[in-house]
Every structure is written in C-alpha cells, then in structure tokens.
C-alpha cells in the first residue's frame, strides 16, 4: 500500500478549496452577524442586536417562509414518491424513460422554469388563452399568477427531481418479489405501501425533503418573478446585500433561517421514524 501521506496530499487541494471557500466564509459570515452596520460602515463590535431584531421583527415572516417551504417540500416529496413508485414498480422497461425525463427536468434551467410558469399562468398566458377561447370565462382570470400558490406550484415543479431521484435510488433495493409475497399473503395495498415500501425508502424521502426544504426556504427569485407582492425571508436577505446594504442583519437572518430549517429537517426525519416501528 502507498504511504498515507500521499493520500492526504491528493485530497489536500479539494480540502483547501472546501476550507477556504466554505468553512472560512461561513465562519466569517457568522462573525459578521454579530457586528453592525451604521451609515454604510461596518462596526466590528460584538452584539446580539441583529438576532434580537430578527426575533422581534421577522419571526412572522420566517415562520411564513418555513410553512411555504414545508408545503412545497411535502408536495415535491409526495409527487416524487408517486412518480418513483410508478417508474420502479409499474412501468417496467418504460421506467428508464421516466427516470430519464426526471433527469432532464433536473438540469433544465432554474430561471427558465420560473419564467415559463409566468408565461403559462399570466393574464395573457396560455391557460387564460385556452379558457377564453373555449368560452369558459369571458374575462381572463387573475388568481393564477402573482400569489403564494403560484410560487408553490413553480417551486414544486422545479424541485420535483430533487425529491424524486433520491427516493427512486432507495427504491432500487426493494425486490419485486418482496411486494409480491406480501400481496400473496393478502396484505391490502396500503399495508404494502406503508409497511414495505415507505420504510425502505426512508433515507431517500428524508434526503429529498431536506434538499427541497433547504433550497426552497432560501429562494428569493421565484417570489420576485411570480409572487406578485409576496415576500419570503430570502427576499429580505437578498435586499441586505442589494439596496439596503446591511450585511450583519442579512447574516443574522441567514443563520436564523438555516438553524430553523435544520430543525425542521431534523423533525421531519424523526417523524419518519414512525415507519421504523412497524
């Protein structure tokens, strides 16, 4: 075997990038969250004011953001599960086509999807076009776009593959024969689903949920483009690095959001444990 120092040497560049561009900036950012900005000057004095401000003024918005992200992630995971199940157990050879479609949609431009939904849902959009042409409505409907549901729809569409692929990956280990024998023993489909399939996909479900939740809770582009006057915490974080220029407050918002998001993900993975007991 080769001496261990060579291993270390080979991994070193990657680790340096990781430490220099991830650990160091994150720690510095944490430090910044305890400083303050005054008249465009960063004042390096330790204080908790930013966190106090977040707790006092942005708690409501933070909870709202987590709720929206939660709805999106649960939707994405549910849809992803159904899709993965169909691809794995129903579709036979066609399953590879389904997987392929999911992969394509994973890489299909983030901005372009948001933009596409605006084209679909707007007052002169495709759905309204169709509704008007078919005579179902006489005036374009306005409730399709520029509201929280359109943000949920758009982000669920974008995040779907992030939820589906890990679930599909963990379904690979389930043998068809296992489900067949359960069925032969007369188990109803709900029992098969919740006693056999879901427990085995737990890792995939939690991974998918975590990815969707962490991405959606920090999103700010979608509310801007399809949310109308909707604001999520991400919009305020982005604004602290744009027109408001208050890094410390933005940093405190970021870390508060991260902490809350990790707690939610943790809670979700604990919740999934109910499937262990069965």
């Amino acid at each position, binding site marked *: 075997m080769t001496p261990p120092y060579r291993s270390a040497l080979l991994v070193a560049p990657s680790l340096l990038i990781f430490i220099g561009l991830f650990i160091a900036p994150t720690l510095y950012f944490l430090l910044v969250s305890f400083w303050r900005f005054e008249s*465009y000057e960063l004042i390096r004095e330790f204080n908790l004011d930013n966190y106090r401000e977040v707790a006092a003024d942005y708690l409501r918005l933070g909870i709202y953001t987590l709720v929206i992200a939660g709805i999106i992630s649960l939707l994405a995971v549910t849809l992803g599960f159904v899709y993965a199940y169909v691809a794995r157990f129903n579709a036979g050879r066609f399953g590879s086509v389904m997987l*392929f479609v999911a992969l394509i949609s994973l890489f299909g431009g983030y901005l372009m999807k948001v933009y596409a939904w605006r084209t679909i849902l707007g007052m002169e959009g495709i759905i309204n076009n169709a509704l008007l042409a078919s005579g179902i409505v006489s005036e374009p409907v306005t409730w399709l776009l520029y509201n929280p549901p359109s943000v949920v729809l758009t982000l669920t569409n974008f995040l779907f593959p992030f939820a589906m692929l890990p679930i599909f990956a963990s379904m690979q280990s389930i043998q068809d024969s296992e489900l067949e024998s359960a069925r032969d023993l007369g188990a109803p489909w709900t029992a098969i689903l919740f006693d056999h399939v879901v427990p085995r996909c737990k890792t995939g479900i939690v991974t998918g949920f975590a990815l969707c939740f962490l991405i959606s809770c920090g999103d700010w582009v979608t509310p801007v483009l399809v949310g109308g006057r909707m604001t999520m915490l991400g919009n305020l974080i982005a604004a602290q690095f744009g027109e408001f220029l208050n890094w410390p407050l933005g940093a405190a918002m970021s870390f508060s959001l991260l902490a809350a998001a990790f707690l939610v993900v943790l809670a979700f993975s604990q919740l999934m444990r109910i499937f262990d007991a069965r």
Partner: protein
Amino acid sequence: MQQANCGLVTARVFGSMNRRGFLMSSSSALLLGAALGERSAAAATTVTLVGWEGYDKPLEGYLKANNITLDPTYIGDSNQIISKLTSGGVGRVDLVTPNVTYVPLLVKLNTLSAVDESKVPNLKHVHPFFLGNPSIRIEGKLYAVPYVWGGVPMMYDPAAISEPQSWSDVLKPEYKGKVSMLDNLNNIQLAARVVTDAKVPTRLTHQQLKDAVDFLIKVKGQTRVLATSYGDMADALARGEAVITFNGWEVVVKKAADKGKKVAYTYPKEGTFGWMDCYCIVRDAPNSDIAHALANEALSEPVQIKAGEGELLGILNTDAIKKLPAEARALYPYDDLEGFSKKVGFFPVAPLKADGDVATFDDWKKEYLRFKNA
C-alpha cells in the same frame, strides 16, 4: 450505494450508472460549436456601467463607431449603486448613473472620482438650471455630469380608468389587485407628500416617517405586482395585470408602447419629487478616459435629441431642447423649469447622522424594511 446520504449526487450518479440507452453521441457538436464561436470579439474596450436601463440606448451609435462594448448592470433603485460600489465595484466599474440626490452620499463614501471638466466640453450646452443643482459639486469639484431629468409621475391605463387625481387614488376599492408599485425606498417621499405636512419630504420626523410607511403598507395591500424595475412595471401595464401605479417614469409610456399598449401618466395633486440622473465616474475607473468621453457624448446634441425624442426622457442640452419635435417637447415643462422645480423639488436623501428628531437614512431603510416585511 453506500453513501445514499450524499443525496443529489448519489441520485444523479445512480441514475447514470443503472440506466442505459438515452444518448445520441452526435450531440457534442453543439457544445463544440459554441466553444469555437466564442473567439474573442476583436479588441473592443469594455466599459462597465451600473445604472438605469435604457440610458445607454441613445449612445449605441457612438459605442459602435468607437468599438466600445458597454457592459451594463441595470438597477431598480439608486441604492443598488451604493451597494455595488462599496462591495467591490470601485476599481472595476467605470460609470454609474445615480439620481443627483445620491451624489453627495456617493462622494462621502469615497466611491466617485471628480470629473475632469476639460474632458467634458459639452457641459457648456447644459441648461444653467441643471448645472445649478447644488448636489453635483462638492467642495468646488464636479462629481456628476447631468444627463436626463423628470418628476416621478403616476402611470395609468387610459383604456381602463380615467385620469387619477391623487396618489391616494391607488387605495380606491375598485383598484384592489390592479395596482403596480415600484419596490423603491423613495416611495417614502411620495407617501410623505400624501400623509404628512413635511415641507421637505426627505426630512421627516420619526412619526412622519412611520405614517408614510404605514401608508405604503396600505398601498401594498392593493398591489398586484411589486415591480422590481420600471420595465417590470411597463410589462405589468402592457399585459393588463395593472391599471394604475404608485411611483412611475415617463419612459414607461414608451416601454409599454413597444409592447403595443397605450399608457398615460399624470402628476398627482400632492406633488412629487424630481430627479436628475447623472453620469458619474467611479473612483479608480479602469477606463476613465472613455468614461469621460461617454459622459461628454451623452450631452451632445444628437444623443440628447435621441434621448428626448426616442426614449421620451427629459433632456437638458439647450440646443437639443430647441430642436425637439413639438410632441416630445410638450412632455416636459422645458419653458418653466423654475416653476417645475418649485412644484416637485429635488430633495437630497435623508441625513446620514441624526439631526434632532429628523429620521436618518438608516431609519428610512429600517422603516422600508418594515414595508417589505408587511
């Protein structure tokens, strides 16, 4: 797959390792083609600009003739210029186009370099009214080359509603869900005109500031689209998503017309605030000479006429004003600038340091965040 907790990576790799049969190998052609077509486009000088969208358009001919590539980043709020410059933009950005009221602040933050007036000979054609603005000179040095001006109007869709009279018309119940509002801190100035009796809408007491923002929050409740730029606002009007706006720009008429929609504007009875956007040279600009040349060219007669006629901007070259077609000339009170100034006013931004009960700029930002948070 042992490292299933690596999530997405695993999923992607997993998909790739277990599924076959989905590739046309010839598709590499496009990537290669794109890479080859990428040959550097001659030796054009690239000038970096952070500013309002559309100001570069009248300069296009000049840029092409002189082999200058303009590299613009568009803003929706002059405050974004401050952020860009103080977060690493100095030394990299050449030009910015802030509202004149932000110039003293930008100078104070040491982000601008004084303009070498000998390189901007066209300054002598600028109407004295605009050169007299106290904010362009600081300690005797010129920091801003005035370019275009206007007063913030209210836009509306004349096909859908009759001409609004007051800024508070946006609160009418029939307009609920049909308002577009620009997401801009200076809305506070407009709101202050409506709900406070402050003489200078940028010098508000804390109570007045709060009242103004409370008003904005009410307007937000009526809003369908919180526009992040004037283009966004024009788009919302053109697509019929909004019929009336809070904050606006004369140029929105043109932007909406490009999309086949007739939009009109009005200056509501409470008054508004005036703005004059300037070309400013950033400190340590990599292309300081070309930046000066562009600022100078922007004041030339042909460019000013293009700006006034083509883009419907308010211009300030006296010779160009005279040659404007009647229609474009009627858009702005060119003959009564003093009167216009009295009515709308060009107000410097709120003070940086506390001054009695007058709210500071930091207070403004904090209050505006409350609006965003609402």
